[in-house]
């Protein structure tokens, strides 16, 4: 699993897709999540595009596409039950899956130890 400075996690799944979610740190900083808006599937996105809106009891925030690629799957379960993002941010509450050209792009991101240092 890799981590971005925007507190997203990324991992390649068995089908060669990149699964994206937010970290425990992000979920706890956000507080209780009450609303998630996911991108439409089969959308081409560029790294940095704000493609997810997430609202907690406190504030709204955006989640950016961590890589260039295409969103091919989204997790409707967290739209129906946004609280899952607080309960299981690293597992059940993934946000979307992307198809990217070259999985080696993941290597630019932090590994778990580096991320732990990053959040202090």
């Amino acid at each position, binding site marked *: 699993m890799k981590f971005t400075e925007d507190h997203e996690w990324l991992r390649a799944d068995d089908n060669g897709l990149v699964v994206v979610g937010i970290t425990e740190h992000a979920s706890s900083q956000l507080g209780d999540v009450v609303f998630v*808006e996911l991108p439409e599937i089969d959308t081409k996105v560029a790294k940095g595009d704000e493609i997810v809106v997430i609202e907690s009891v406190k504030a709204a925030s955006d989640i950016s596409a961590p890589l260039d690629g295409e969103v091919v799957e989204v997790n409707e379960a967290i739209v129906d039950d946004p609280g899952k993002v607080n309960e299981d941010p690293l597992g059940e509450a993934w946000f979307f899956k992307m198809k990217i050209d070259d999985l080696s792009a993941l290597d630019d991101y932090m590994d778990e130890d580096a991320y732990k240092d990053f959040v202090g």
Partner: protein
Amino acid sequence: MTDLMRLPLHDLHVELGARMVPFAGYDMPVQYSAGVMKEHQHTRTRAGLFDVSHMGQVVLRGGDYAQVARAMEALVPVNIAGLGENRQRYGFFTNEGGGIEDDLMMANRGDHLFVVVNAACKDADIALMRAGLGADVRVEVIEDRALLALQGPEAEAVLVGLNPAAAEMRFMDVATLELAGAECWVSRSGYTGEDGFEISVPADAAETLACRLLEHEAVAPIGLGARDSLRLEAGLCLYGHDIDSETSPIEAGLSWAIQKVRRNGGARAGGFPGAERILQELEDGAPRKRVGLRPQGRAPMREGVELFAEEAGGAPVGVITSGGFGPTVGGPVAMGYLPAERTAPGTTVFGELRGKRHPVKVAELPFVPANFKR
């Protein structure tokens, strides 16, 4: 972020796992480890303990209560002279333009008036009272007391465990009660829509009292985050957001706080700042009104979201002044201002979020029925 002031219960909050944030110049608990949602639900179903020591506590003394009350009536459009002993009333300081300078609670304590004002307005309020009450009224700022609020359906049972006299109080009664060995000034009121008490306690006894209350299995500490969602569901105004120096009490839907005796035809009609606009709006209505709003989707609409009459085009007709997720309602709730002709419950307007307009229905306030012991 320099020189954040710390209040008497600061260390207790930190021990209890609070996330501390700056609020009105004070370092305040916004939430504890349970989080806003659970804290909110706990207050609605059991009892929540809030530290609101940042609020201003002021004693107004003169020759007698009547003299202080008459002086105060020059600053607020409220019947203070007719307030019964050991009774409390909600009101607001108005300005010459008929706007609201702050909202506050005022209690007749027999030989003096006890007032509680908002933290962010406290210095201005004190200056306003010093300037406006005349030389015969002393403005004593109470710096050596903390203020706690115990709110929720089990608040009475909890407080009765410390002093049975708490059960005799009704909504908006005030009393001096000994609690955990300290002389406390207690009112049966709050800012959540639930039954409960606000307790002014000597600063050096505050932690002991707070711990005694928290020992009760029904009581959990509640931060400012849940305080905000609770008051929003209860339809209560937050100064600086839902009401400000421009909004009149009539626009804000607070006409109920202006008793007949201060209105046209009353024995002490007018005589407060902005009386001209306020009395006229009481008779003719205001061009815009505060309303409850239910966004029809799941996305919360927060302060600043503009409201439109149509799904596309046109200029905004109103704005949201408070909004978020209502944990008890189970969906987004908001308050805001709309032109008088669009304030009937059920009216649909559109709130613009991230460039897209979403339907919002005007709703009755409060969103959650009040649970006071009258």
